[in-house]
């Protein structure tokens, strides 16, 4: 039985080594994207299944991590579209950051941020608009480089940097003023 056959032991071994090894990170990313444990399990399982079906498209084991996260994101976005949830894309992506966006004095007014309970951080992350939440999840859950995030999200490198920057500013503002919520998105 060749490794190209659907259920061959070689194919399953390859799937375990290249894809299933990322299961925890896939689940964590799914959890942060969906905000719901049951949906996250569902999304992770569908991602793994899709990856197994398309395992032949994987060029090399080194590319597996980016590849499988791209699948996860694609399934997640399709679900959002089909569920008619609105994705807030009313953001202006500029590849270069404006100096005026950065306010030094905000740091002074902060409570010691390291004391923030993790649950509060997760909630604040969940309230970020999706275009900002995605790169943060990929950077902190997946540990991806800017280049890899750019590949997964199919956006230019400068846009990745800009979104990450704004995402962290928004998150900081959420943690500083939890009562003032950003727009809720899926």
């Amino acid at each position, binding site marked *: 039985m060749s490794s190209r056959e659907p259920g061959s032991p070689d194919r399953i071994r390859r799937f375990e080594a290249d894809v299933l090894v990322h299961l925890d990170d896939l*689940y964590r990313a799914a959890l942060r994207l969906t905000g719901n444990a049951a949906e996250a399990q569902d999304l992770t*399982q569908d991602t793994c299944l899709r990856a197994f079906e398309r395992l032949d498209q994987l060029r090399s084991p080194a590319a597996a991590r980016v590849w499988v996260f791209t699948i996860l994101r694609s399934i997640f976005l399709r679900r959002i579209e089909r569920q008619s949830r609105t994705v807030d894309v009313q953001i202006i992506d500029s590849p270069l950051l404006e100096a005026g966006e950065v306010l030094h004095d905000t740091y002074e007014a902060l409570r010691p941020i390291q004391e923030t309970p993790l649950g509060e951080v997760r909630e604040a992350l969940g309230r970020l608009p999706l275009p900002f939440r995605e790169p943060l999840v990929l950077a*902190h859950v997946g540990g991806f480089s800017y280049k890899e995030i750019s590949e997964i999200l199919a956006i230019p490198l400068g846009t990745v940097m800009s979104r990450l920057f704004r995402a962290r500013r928004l998150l900081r503002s959420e943690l500083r003023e939890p009562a003032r919520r950003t727009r809720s998105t899926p």
Partner: protein
Amino acid sequence: MTCDEVPRVIDAYLDGELSLAATLQAHEHFAVCETCRRVLESEAALHGLLVQASRAETAPADLRSNVLCSLPTGGRPGFQPARRVIVRFGIVSGFVGLVGLGWLATQRTVPQPMTPLAAELASKHLLYGEGHGGALELVTSEPTKMGPWFQGRLGFPVRLPSVARRPERLVGGRISSVADAPAAYALYDRSGQSISLFVTRRVPFARRGWTERHVDGAELYFASLRGVVLIWWEEKRAERLYAAASGGNEEALVEFALLCIKGEQSRSGGAALPARLAARPLAAPGSRRRRPRRSGAS
């Protein structure tokens, strides 16, 4: 590096994305500038919090096994060793053995490659159905509560069978997805055996890899995967796909599928149903089912 430049590079510095030269410049600046060092510490704390918040959770213990169980398998367990033994026997026994091997080969049916739909339904049945209701969003035995709950969340009506005089009992439901489209998921219990019911939009090319059978006038599509029996059918007017899955026997699942179809039939008075669904009355529970007729979609 100046204080004005720090905000532009601080994220990249903490993310390890700066060039070596720029990293050294930033280092030098932080060493001499108290204000920027405080900014750096605050940013580093935020990065640290994000990592902790994101990575503290782990996947449920059974997720890995559920994923592995849901993989489409092309071969039967034990097939390869068995064939090897037979081949060795054939070599030793000469012609008689070869004849025996040939006979065995004809007896073995080549397993159908499982379709993505079958794998998805089976995996979700294992995920939601075998967890004794732990994954349900609404736990209720009342179809009158479950139906509107689904409709409110999915935006389309979901017909649930009436099980008042049946061995099946509604356990509850949740919103799921099938083929990346939103789907209603209802869990039933029949004498300790879980039955899953999925309702979603029609799935393109769903027939591929399934076995079509006409049972009591209903057009049903069958598959089985890792001990999970799967049946789906279409409600053509509403463009919905219904699918049932169970780890129990096929006969009971066929009964359940026919019960779902009968509910739809009685609801609409049978007047406008497609001929294939309204053709003949349903078999009583436990009665002998008409011998299935196979058609081309194998």
